[in-house]
């Protein structure tokens, strides 16, 4: 397992795999297999994959500890950047296909509709994370500050979930949102639990 994770081909392989959803959507557009409303299918598909990559990114640390595979950490940055990439494509497809790239209309739409504002905010919060994702930025910021900044990802995933929930709320359709909410609750809950028991442990250590 460890050898596989450290294999020089592992990263390029993941890079290619993560492009498959985009490739399948592009294929769908070109060969008209996205159903009766391809624009909607494309916009929603890109949104779905943004949320999925956010969940995958957040799953790296719990999995790393649970499976005792520290090498998994190598893939976290790429997954996070893919979440940002799919988010950008999601925004672009909305701006283009739904709004016809009318920037005045887009700005008004974002300001007027909470569910779009929330999604847009989530993507804007990902921007500083993407911009400080390279090694020199970590060094420049210092690991502590960098880590603090990148805790923004928790806000991002919660806003993304709210965006999805609100989008579906109009049609009372929460089944799929529920699945993502459960996954996010698990991933964030694990961290809360960890932080809480960590604090208790350090207190015990201080007393001891």
């Amino acid at each position, binding site marked *: 397992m460890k050898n596989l994770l450290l294999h020089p081909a592992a990263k390029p392989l993941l890079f290619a795999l993560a492009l498959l959803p985009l490739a399948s959507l592009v294929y769908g*557009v070109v060969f*008209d297999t*996205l*159903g*009766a*409303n*391809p*624009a*909607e299918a*494309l916009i929603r598909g890109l949104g779905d994959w943004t949320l999925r990559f956010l969940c995958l990114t957040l799953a790296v640390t719990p999995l790393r500890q649970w499976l005792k595979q520290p090498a998994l950490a190598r893939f976290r940055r790429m997954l996070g950047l893919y979440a940002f990439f799919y988010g950008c494509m999601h925004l672009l497809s909305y701006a*283009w*296909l*739904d709004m*016809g790239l009318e920037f005045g209309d887009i700005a008004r*739409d974002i300001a*007027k*509709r909470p*569910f779009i504002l929330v999604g847009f905010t989530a993507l804007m919060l990902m921007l500083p994370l993407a911009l400080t994702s390279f090694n020199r930025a970590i060094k420049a910021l210092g690991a502590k500050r960098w880590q603090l900044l990148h805790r923004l990802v928790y806000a991002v995933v919660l806003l993304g979930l709210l965006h999805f929930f*609100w*989008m579906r*709320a*109009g*049609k*009372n*359709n929460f*089944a799929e949102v529920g699945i993502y909410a459960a996954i996010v609750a698990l991933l964030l809950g694990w961290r809360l639990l960890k932080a809480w028991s960590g604090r208790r442990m350090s207190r015990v250590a201080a007393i001891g």
Partner: protein
Amino acid sequence: MHLIKDHGFTHPHSSEITPREQFEQRRELLRHLATGVAGIGLASWAARDALAQTTAGPGKLAKLPGVKSAVAGGMVMDKPTPYQDVTSYNNFYEFGTDKADPARTAGSLKPRPWTVSVEGEVGKPGTFDLDMLLKLAPIEERIYRLRCVEGWSMVVPWMGYSLSELIKKVEPTSKAKFVEFITLADKTQMPGLRSGVLDWPYTEGLRIDEAMNPLTLLTLGLYGEVLPNQNGAPVRLIVPWKYGFKSAKSIVKIRFVEKQPVSSWTRAAEQEYGFYSNVNPSVDHPRWSQASERRIGEGGVFAKKRPTLMFNGYEAQVGSLYAGMDLKKFY
């Protein structure tokens, strides 16, 4: 002077008349071309030819022929949405919430035998079975725009007749101010009922003058055939100037009442779905603008949206129903 000899009406030699079989083969060839067997340029030329002839379905369901409607606004000139799209992109929550679900799961619906009971404030209540409904008035083809509240639209050749034909037969009393439509809710036929998305059965309502408007269609088919299950078989309503959800599917009961009924979507989210729900580009849905719409089947993913028309383009026929009403308040 040399005169052209008068032969009367000149008939072609019988040898020059195209045999029926050959003529039909030609149509078949055109259809093949239109479905993309040949090159793209040729296909679009052939599709235009095929369109000019008929709005016929693929022939999998029973035929339901009708005469072209003479009702004002009954035959829009917009290009009909392909049958495939009309029957595979449906909001019919009784069969699942995804728009691809009904086409997959509605096979379990049994459209025959079927009855519609008419009750409430009428002189002649009664139960109509499907054959009675099919014979109650001449079936017409009506090509209507259909605008969904979600921001997409289609153009559908429906088969049916004005609901007013049925209403006149049952003689509403003076207390009949509204009409309520109650649709089928049968767990054995409708897998979507297990979800609590809406209160079942799905109900809708119209004011009596809306129900009597000749455009309000009691619909039994589309594209010259009976309704596919996923489109609300065997009998549904079509109210073309209102958002699609007002047009209840698979109706089992029509009730004439004095008080304004509460529709299913109004009960679920009153701020978003009002009783009237007339198509109105200037009244936004809380989550999106209603100013424009995406026409299904038109030009693929990069097609520009088109502006939404007041009352979905039927203002001339129905605008007077709402004279003096604040349509922002009565959304």
